[in-house]
C-alpha cells in the first residue's frame, strides 16, 4: 500500500459523565441519557483525521447503538470525518462485548480498512475488551494503549504506554490500534464543519443486513446487590485546624 489510508474509527455515545446513571428493568444501563460522543472516541477521531491529513485517504466512523447514536457520528463528521455507519437493532439492546465486537466486525470488514482506530476503553464501561475481540474477528494484529502513531507506507510505528514507560511496536497494515486519550487533543468542529456534516452520509444497518445471529448471551447478570460502601467519616471545613486533624489521623494510622 502506498499513500492514502482508509481509516475506520469506532465511536460510541455514552451517558454524559456529568449526569446520573439509571437502570432499566432488566438491569442494563439506561441509554436514555446518552448525549455525548465518548471523550476517548473524540481523541480517536482526531488521530484518524490527523493521519488522513498527513497521508490522504478517508475516515469512516462506525458506531453501534440506538438511532440517536447518529448524533455521536454527526459530531465526528463535523470534526471532519467523511462518512458514517450506524449499526442499530432492537436486538442489540444490552449487548455484551462479544456481540458488540461481532456486529462491529461485520460492519467494518466490507470497508477493508488499512487502519481501525478504537479508544482504549469507553467512559461508561471502562473494560476495554471490545478492541482485542474486534481485532481477532477482523484477523488483524492489535496494538493497545497507543500514545503515538506514525505511519510510513505500510508500516505503523506505535508508542505503546506501559506501567513504567513505553514500548515501540511495529506492525504492518491492516491493523487495529487502540489509542489513549493523551494521543491527540480533539479539535472543535467549525461552523463550516457542522454545516458540511449535515449532508454527509450515515448508513444505517441492522443485524439481518450484517448476517449476524444474536445467539445466546455469553454472560448474564444473576443479581445485583448494593456495593459494600465505606462509611463516611467526619467531614470538616478547613478553619485552620484541618492540618492538626489530618496529623491526628496519620498518627493513629502509625505513619508518622
Amino acid at each position, binding site marked *: 500500500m502506498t499513500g492514502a489510508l482508509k481509516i475506520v474509527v469506532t465511536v460510541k455515545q455514552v451517558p454524559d459523565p456529568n449526569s446520573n446513571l439509571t437502570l432499566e428493568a432488566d438491569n442494563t444501563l439506561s441509554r436514555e441519557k446518552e448525549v455525548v460522543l465518548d471523550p476517548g472516541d473524540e481523541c480517536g477521531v482526531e488521530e484518524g483525521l490527523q493521519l488522513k491529513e498527513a497521508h490522504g485517504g478517508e475516515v469512516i466512523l462506525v458506531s453501534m447503538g440506538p438511532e440517536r447514536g447518529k448524533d455521536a457520528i454527526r459530531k465526528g463528521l463535523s470534526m471532519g470525518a467523511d462518512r458514517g455507519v450506524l449499526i442499530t437493532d432492537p436486538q442489540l439492546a444490552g449487548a455484551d462485548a462479544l456481540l458488540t465486537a461481532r456486529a462491529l466486525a461485520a460492519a467494518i470488514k466490507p470497508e477493508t480498512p488499512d487502519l481501525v482506530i478504537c479508544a482504549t476503553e469507553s467512559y461508561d464501561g471502562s473494560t476495554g475488551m471490545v478492541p482485542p475481540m474486534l481485532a481477532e474477528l477482523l484477523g488483524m494484529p492489535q496494538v493497545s494503549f497507543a500514545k503515538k502513531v506514525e505511519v510510513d507506507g505500510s508500516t505503523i510505528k506505535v508508542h505503546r504506554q506501559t506501567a*513504567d514507560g513505553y514500548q515501540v511496536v511495529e506492525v504492518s497494515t491492516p491493523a487495529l490500534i487502540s489509542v489513549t486519550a493523551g494521543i491527540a487533543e480533539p479539535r472543535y468542529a467549525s461552523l463550516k464543519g457542522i454545516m458540511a456534516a449535515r449532508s454527509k452520509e450515515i448508513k444505517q444497518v441492522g443485524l439481518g443486513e450484517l448476517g449476524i445471529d444474536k445467539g445466546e448471551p455469553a*454472560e448474564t447478570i444473576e443479581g445485583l446487590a448494593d456495593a459494600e460502601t465505606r462509611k463516611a467519616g467526619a467531614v*470538616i471545613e*478547613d478553619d485552620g485546624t484541618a492540618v492538626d486533624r489530618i496529623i491526628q489521623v496519620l498518627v493513629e494510622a502509625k505513619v508518622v
Partner: protein
Amino acid sequence: MAKVWVYAELNQGHLTPTSLELMARARDLGDVEAIALGAGAKAAAATLGKHGAKVVHINEDAAFDDFIAEPATDALASLHKEQPADLILFGFTPDSRDVAGRLAARLEVGLISNAGDIAAKDGGFVAKVPYFGGAKLASMKANKKPAIVLVRPKSFEAREVGGTAEVKDLKVTIDAGSKRAHVTERVVEASEKVKLEDARVVISGGRGMGGPDNFPLLEDLASALGGAVGASRAVVDAGWVPYSMQVGQTGKSVRPGVYIAVGISGAMQHTVGMKASKVIIAINKDAEAPIMKMADLGVVGDALKIVPALTAAVKAKKR
C-alpha cells in the same frame, strides 16, 4: 473437579504479582493448572507450584515476549483444544487484557472483566463485578465454556501453600501469521522512588490540583511521609503526569495504610483502585464530592494551602 487455568503473566522474565493473587483464589475453585509463556517461564513454574499449581504448562519461545498477544492466544487456544479448561483466569492488566479478548473471540465464548471476586456455583462460575458507577455489585454468570474471567489486581492475597508443580512443555508452533505486532524497543521513563503499589502511604492528585505545576507539592508530602504519588485518570488523560501514576480501574490498584486523595472527586474509575485502603483522607473544595462519602476524614478547603502546611507539620513531627 473443575479444571481451572491461571494465565501467569510474565513481564520481561518476571512473574507478575497478580498471577500469584489469582492462584490464591483458583485453588478454591478446582484443580489448578498455570500457563507461563516466554522468558522465565521455567523459573516461574517452581513459584507457581508453591502457590498451588498442580501442572504448569511452559514454553520459552522468544515470540511470546517479542510479539503482542497473538502468540499467547495461539498457545492457549491450542492447549484448550487438546485438554479443555472449565475456567481461565486472567489478571485485569493491559497485556493480559489483549490476550483474553482475542482468546474469548476466537473460542466464541465471551468473557467477564473487571471482576473483584469469583466463586463456583451450580457447576459454573459467578463473578462479582462493580456496576452502575460502582454503587452496585453485579453477580455475573458465565454461560459458556470455558468461562474467561479477568480479575482486578489486588483482589486476593497471594499465599504460598507449598507444593511442586508438574512442568509440561506446551507444544505449539507460532507461525509468521501471529508474529505481527513486533515490540522492537522498551523505554523506561519513570524511576519511582517508592513503588506506588507497595507504598504504605499514597497521595493522589486530581483536577483539583489546578495543574501539573502543583504536583511537586504532593511529591514533597510523599517524601516527608515515605510514600508515593498517584493520580486520577482525568489528569493523566490531560497529560499532567505519566500513566505510571494512574490509580484506578485502568491504572494501578493500591491498598496502602493511608490514602490521601487531593482534588479528586471520586468517580468509580478511580475508587475501585483505592477503596481497599485502610484509611482514606480526602481534601477537596467540594463538600458534596463522592469521595467525601467514603473518606474517614474529609477536609473541605483549598488543597494548595493545606498540602504544604501538612508537609511542614509532618516534618516538624518527625524532628
